[in-house]
């Protein structure tokens, strides 16, 4: 069934179709519609789930952790300050190997108070052990929630499905909402690896000495390394059932490109406007949208960008004292594999618009020199 829905509701429908059993959430702009619709679904019986209206995001994640270890499929959604408040529990969920799925609406961090988009909230959580998927359309948001459950429950690592505030969260698009029966086929009932139960009494996540701790972390990393292949596999299964392919990276006209614009989130589609325009002018420009940020798609990036002389990364985020975070990661992925020049651009912090002009400016800058003249190339900043 096709419906015109906002990005936030695409998250709600994803959670509904996944037959989420426990939801614990706290309201924050611009996430509120996600949980409003879910609370309606729980109230009218569309979704058979417990909705715990907690008193903070910290408790939201704690309650999800409790419900998950009890054996229920769980969901929450948050944004920005809320995600930051959850930080401790994000480590707990991943360290405890609980397949929780969460929607995060990318909103810039205060101060000053802001509700507009950038990626510093979710990227600040990159070392917590969560999978992170940055979406660029409402359809992709819904599809990704279902795939995220599939991956998370297979490998016991939680997933964050990320979308830009307003640019996606509040934008209405046509979304194909799949049949429940097909979703049930793709995503059967949650079979937890282990649960806290009196039938098999065990103690979970207790005091762990140097003798054992490191192995637990080693195993988490080893399982993270399996995710790219698992993403590919579950993406193919998804295509078979629903006719839509889900990929960790999305290259567009990259094969012969002399300049590739690397983007994430909604900026990808804006970049394509510039790419198509430049192609008409005879300039070989392509776009690589990175959807999966954790684990970082090293192999895909190396393969696609192996022969690209110039790479322009657009970061809607910053690691103060370093660069934009996607450019750092990409440089680390490409290190020692070739002679590509990586131009690290930063734009759109705190919700400033990223337009086709931003990409035209990037392409002009990259065309002028062989190597970047500055560590960070700022777009549209008032100096």
């Amino acid at each position, binding site marked *: 069934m096709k419906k015109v829905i906002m990005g936030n509701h695409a998250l709600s429908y994803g959670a509904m179709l996944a037959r989420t059993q426990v939801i614990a959430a706290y309201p924050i702009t611009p996430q509120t519609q996600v949980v409003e619709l879910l609370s309606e679904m729980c109230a009218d019986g569309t979704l058979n789930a417990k909705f715990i209206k907690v008193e903070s995001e910290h408790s939201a994640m704690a309650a999800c952790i409790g419900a998950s270890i009890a054996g229920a499929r769980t969901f929450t959604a948050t944004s920005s300050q809320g995600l930051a408040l959850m930080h*401790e529990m994000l480590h707990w969920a991943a360290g405890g190997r609980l397949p929780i799925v969460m929607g995060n609406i990318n909103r810039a961090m205060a101060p000053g108070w802001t509700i507009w988009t950038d990626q510093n909230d979710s990227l600040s959580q990159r070392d917590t052990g969560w999978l992170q998927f940055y979406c660029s359309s409402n359809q992709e948001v819904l599809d990704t929630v279902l795939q995220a459950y599939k991956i998370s429950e297979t490998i016991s690592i939680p997933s964050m499905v990320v979308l830009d505030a307003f640019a996606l969260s509040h934008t209405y698009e046509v979304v194909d909402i799949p049949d429940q029966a097909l979703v049930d086929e793709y995503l059967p009932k949650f079979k937890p690896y282990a649960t806290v139960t009196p039938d098999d009494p065990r*103690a979970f996540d207790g*005091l762990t000495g140097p003798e054992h701790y490191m192995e637990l972390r080693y195993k988490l990393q080893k399982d993270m390394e399996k995710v790219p292949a698992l993403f590919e596999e579950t993406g193919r299964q998804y295509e078979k059932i629903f006719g839509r392919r889900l990929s960790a990276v999305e290259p567009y006209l990259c094969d012969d490109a002399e300049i590739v614009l690397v983007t994430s989130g909604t900026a990808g589609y804006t970049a394509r406007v510039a790419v198509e325009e430049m192609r008409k002018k005879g300039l070989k420009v392509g776009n690589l949208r990175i959807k999966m940020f954790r684990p970082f798609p090293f192999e895909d990036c190396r393969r696609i960008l192996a022969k690209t002389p110039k790479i322009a990364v657009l970061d809607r985020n910053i690691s103060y004292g370093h660069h934009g975070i996607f450019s750092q990661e990409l440089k680390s992925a490409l290190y020692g594999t070739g002679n590509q020049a990586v131009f690290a651009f930063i734009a759109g912090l705190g919700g400033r618009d990223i337009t086709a002009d931003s990409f035209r400016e990037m392409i002009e800058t990259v065309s002028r020199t062989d190597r970047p003249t500055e560590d960070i190339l700022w777009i549209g900043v008032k100096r």
Partner: protein
Amino acid sequence: MKKEKKMTLTLPIEEHIGAGNLACQGCGANLALRYVLKALGQRTILCIPACCWAVIDGGFPHSCADVPIYHCAFETAASTATGVKAGLDMIGDKETTVMAWAGDGGTFDIGLQALSGAAERNDDIIYACYDNEAYMNTGIQRSSATPSGAWTTTTPVKFPKDQPKKDIDAIMAAHNIPYLATASTSYPEDLFKKAKKAKEIRGTKFLHIYAPCPTGWKSRPEDTVKLGRMVVQNGIFPLYEVEGGEKYTQTIKVKDKKPIDDYLKLQGRFRHLKPEGIAMLQDEVDRRYARLLKKFENK
């Protein structure tokens, strides 16, 4: 021949926590969980945040309990228990009791927000706080459960704690939860009955259990039971229950309330107190007790 006095065993003989765990000698917290689990039985899930019991249970991969335990973050005992309960409901287990088992720091201080949230929602959990009146697990730092006048490693003798203990029971009663009780490990039958009662009631139940700590109080391990009796008899820690936030019932009546002096003398943490300091504490205890007595009369 002298007639032998017969003792009746009123508590179930079954044990749910094993001997040889990591508790200190004379640990009141150890007794507290032992008695509570006798009442709740094996079909109980514990959510234990950072506290002495996070250690007492034994490090990974060991556990001294025959009940399942989820070790959770410091401030999340209540919210984790809420989540476990919701998860159990959704997988069709409506029988298992879920209990948050936290120390005073995790309850009075860092976990208070989550506890208040769970109580306001009236989530169907037991929240039990074993109160040893300081952060004992981290090395005896003051908490808001530490009584005034007490020494801790962060309230040195030259500047002992000069604020009274936070009245957590009044705070929890103000949430109008269906059941709240104070208990002492030295009145095991009273504690047992209260835990049993809590198990049968739906909604949020709060148990506040006084648990002496020889390590932190600088008392003798063999005085643990004695201290647990004295603190009830001198009115510092009266034993009562509150139903629905308004019906107060004193479960262990005190006929002749004792002065606090002897109780203080058994503990190194009060050794520095001068007579005028003790008099101030006595005054504080008397005022608190008088206030409670009025509530017991349900006036």
